[in-house]
């Protein structure tokens, strides 16, 4: 029986309430309101237009592609798409914010209510599939970056990121454990990558999360929450929640109160600390950006967005299961868009789905793992794998020979049929040859035959092994079995 995630305190059990605000960088060649490029890792201040640097008189013009990607993302979580939305200015001073305001969407976001489903995961303590509500997605500008390590007394500013388009994806406070939050992030990342609206690369900062955490006694009202800013990996998000929930329980149980505040996560210690409290919070003076007209989306635009959506993870998983693939394998194959794409290409080559899924998840993933490679740079293409699988399916080679052939494919890059031909690995299905081999094995092991007939039936496998060995592994296992049963029966 699975139990809910609870923190055991002095005064009893506490429930954790979690909401996530994910900032996902929109995949686009240009920034949200300027024509500047968005390459990661470029030399500082080389991806900056006059608009990004907020030179006098410069004006923002919305980048259609960024809007399109956010709309497609909203459609992927089956959210309400707002045909009329508007940009607001969020005003504050900081050296990485050239305009002195961030263009965002407070009052009328592009995307309204949606949801995604996280799957049951017994090991992680998630008892059943769970729907996590998504309140909204809005688009906004990223800020630049301060560099404090370039000069002993001065800070430098790199504006390459300034003005890059972000989607802020705001969940409902629907998660109740670090594992659920982790599953939500992974699922969201998968959807973004399927849609192609964000590369989901958390190391490069393409995706980061603000983590809202509060605790309560089960059944009570929501407690006061804290917000831990800019956490940049799934593991860190889970750590931050765990630490923050325990900290809050300790504060409450020792008679204190939770202060609504912004906190920072320290990945080295796995702890959070106060960044600023509500009293020091900025008054952002949001108001509609007068440089921009409201964003109005027409039918043709929305239709194109919808038509360009690929098959999404949930649908793909269901389709795979419908083809007879196990639930587990279907989940593994659809977790990453690249694996799913690779597997779809394999299916397109006409292989049998279930056997192909087994082979990909065990043989191919095992090999890639050993080589430290990714499916995107697999040395074997879907077409080559299909050739190998076809040889197994039509009885040309056995499963165990297939393993040898696959190894040789990885080494040489040659095709499976060519390797089988060259190495003489073709399976022996000639009954006469098999009978001869069986007879020789039985003759050489008369004592074991007697034991078998005396009731020691486990010896059957021994005879199979000896026969296969005698045939250098090439005997058709099914026929070997049949002949052995006939002779021993």
């Amino acid at each position, binding site marked *: 029986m699975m139990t809910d995630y609870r923190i055991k305190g002095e005064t009893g059990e506490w429930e954790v309430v979690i909401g996530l605000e994910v900032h996902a960088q929109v995949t686009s060649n240009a920034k949200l309101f300027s024509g500047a490029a968005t390459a990661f890792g470029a030399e500082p201040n080389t991806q900056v237009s*006059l608009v990004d*640097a*907020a*030179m*006098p*008189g*410069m*004006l*923002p*013009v*919305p980048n259609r592609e960024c809007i399109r990607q956010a709309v497609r993302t909203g459609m992927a979580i089956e959210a309400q798409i707002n045909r009329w939305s508007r940009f607001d*200015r969020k*005003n504050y*001073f*900081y*050296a990485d914010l*050239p*305009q*002195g*305001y961030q263009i965002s969407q407070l009052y009328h976001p592009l995307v309204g209510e949606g949801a995604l489903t996280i799957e049951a995961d017994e090991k992680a303590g998630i008892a059943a599939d769970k729907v996590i509500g998504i309140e909204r997605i809005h688009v906004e500008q990223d800020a630049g970056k301060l560099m404090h390590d370039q000069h002993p007394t001065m*800070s430098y*500013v790199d504006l390459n990121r300034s003005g890059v388009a972000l989607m802020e994806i705001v969940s409902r406070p629907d998660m109740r454990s670090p594992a659920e939050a982790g599953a939500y992030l992974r699922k969201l990342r998968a959807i973004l990558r399927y849609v192609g609206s964000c590369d989901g690369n958390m190391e490069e900062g393409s995706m980061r999360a603000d983590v809202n955490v509060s605790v309560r006694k089960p059944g009570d009202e929501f407690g006061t929450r804290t917000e831990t800013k800019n956490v940049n990996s799934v593991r860190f998000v889970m750590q931050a929640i765990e630490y923050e929930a325990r900290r809050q329980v300790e504060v409450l149980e020792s008679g204190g109160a939770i202060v609504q505040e912004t906190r920072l996560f320290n990945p080295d210690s796995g702890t959070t600390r106060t960044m600023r409290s509500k009293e020091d919070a900025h*008054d952002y*003076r*949001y*108001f509609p*950006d*007068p*440089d*921009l*007209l409201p964003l109005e989306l027409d039918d043709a635009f929305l239709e194109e967005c919808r038509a360009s959506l690929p098959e999404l993870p949930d649908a793909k998983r269901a389709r795979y299961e419908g083809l007879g693939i196990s639930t587990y394998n279907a989940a593994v194959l659809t977790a990453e868009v690249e694996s799913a794409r690779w597997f779809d290409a394999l299916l397109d080559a006409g292989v049998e789905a279930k056997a192909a899924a087994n082979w990909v998840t065990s043989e191919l993933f095992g090999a890639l793992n050993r080589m430290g490679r990714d499916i995107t740079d697999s040395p074997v293409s879907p077409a080559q794998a299909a050739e190998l699988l076809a040889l197994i399916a039509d009885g040309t080679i056995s499963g165990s020979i297939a393993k040898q052939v696959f190894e040789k494919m990885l080494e040489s890059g040659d095709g499976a049929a060519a390797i089988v031909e060259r190495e003489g690995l073709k399976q022996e299905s000639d009954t006469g040859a098999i009978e001869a081999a069986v007879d020789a094995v039985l003759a050489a092991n008369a004592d074991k035959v007697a034991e078998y007939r005396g009731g020691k039936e486990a010896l059957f496998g021994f005879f199979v092994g000896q026969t296969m060995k005698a045939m250098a592994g090439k005997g058709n296992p099914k026929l070997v079995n049949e002949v052995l049963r006939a002779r021993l029966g």
Partner: protein
Amino acid sequence: MTSITVSDLTNLTVAQIRDGHRAGDFSAVDVAEAFVAAVDAADALNAFIVKTPEHALAAAKQADADRAAGSLKPLSGVPIGMKDLFATKGVQTTAASHMLEGFVPQYESSVSQRLWDAGAGMLGKLNLDQFAMGSSNETSYFGNVISPWRREGGDNAALAPGGSSGGSSSAIAARLCPAATGTDTGGSIRQPAAFTGISGIKPTYGRCSRWGIVAFASSLDQAGPMARDVRDCAIMLEAMAGFDPKDATSLDLPVPQWEAGLNADMRGKRVGVPREYRVDGIDADIARVWDEGIRWMKDAGAEIVDISLPHTKYALPTYYIIAPAEASSNLARYDGVRYGLRDLPEGAGLQDMYAATRAAGFGPEVKRRIMIGTYVLSAGFYDAYYTQAQKVRTLIARDFEAAWAHCDVILTPTAPSAAFALGDKSADPLAMYLNDVFAVPASLAGLPAMSVPGGLDRDGLPLGLQIIGKAFDEQGVLNAGLAIEQRSGFAARPDKWW
């Protein structure tokens, strides 16, 4: 060449320069040199922050070459003044603020680029109220502009040229340039035009690109021309206007041929006279000139219609909430980090640098408006001020919509008084703001509006009449302006004392 003298050349209008140059009556270089000399002799007016004779002369040489080659452009040979709110590539652009002193843009504003593409040359960057905030040109960091006009009767008090485009109005009235750019947020083209006896039009919001114009209040800012007559305004506006993909609020409409469309025949047109503009205690001279304007409209064949714009009295407070709100945000970029002034006291951190830079860089009026704007947008006050002001703005726009059922253009005074003396109102911001009372409703509604000279007051100072038109109907506004111009016989000009 003919016997045209230098002073003759500086008396020519844009159309006369264009046509005379085309006809070979004089060279563009002659024209440019005449205006360059006039500018050099007029330092007492303080109309220019930067002079650029080399720009004007280079354009003039090109114009002469183009004439020889038979490839004249619409403004070939016409030297103009550029309000120092427009970014000009390679030429200091300051918005008349210490904050941007020494700032040289690497880019050209869309409007000024269009003017250069049309063949115009630049005599210099014209002084203005700091960040275009002011109605008298007294807020410029580079000193106030002085109007070439003086009251009759030996009163030598220096008069305000109006604001914020006061450098433009003073320079045109003093014959330092035949035309200039202005910008109008709440009357900054029309009021200075009225104060100096010239014409100026603020087109429909979105007609002229805002790209490269130092922003004051984005939802209101609009560039437009100032010149000595209506035809010149039409010629200039044709060159300045046009869709610009770099400005998201730019109108994607073709630019009409306003000059060719000029027609002073007002038969079949209805001219609305809004009763709310006839405020209690209206200046007698203002009322007289307004009545004359009405008579001229009738004479031109128009039907006069009494109309109501009931929310007029809320326009000024609405404007002074919305404009500062936008300004407080637009001016946040002047922070000392990337360009312009940086005041970094010894040992100061980022916040100290912001405070020191902005304290030193902005003048008192700019600071006042930033503070007002910050206040009206702040938590707890936003709905009471900003949201409410936006609602009233909508009502004001609806007033005009309703009025268009009864009239084609609206005739009002441009300003409630003639030019006042420098220093008269600078200690009383509210009195200063009241100068915009007739100008701001059209700004809030985004409508085209122009000021043309209507006559002189008892002190011999010019008074302006304002024509407000329907959105996109600059032609209707220009035509009504032309009808007045042809009947007013306004020929007064200031005596040269500088």
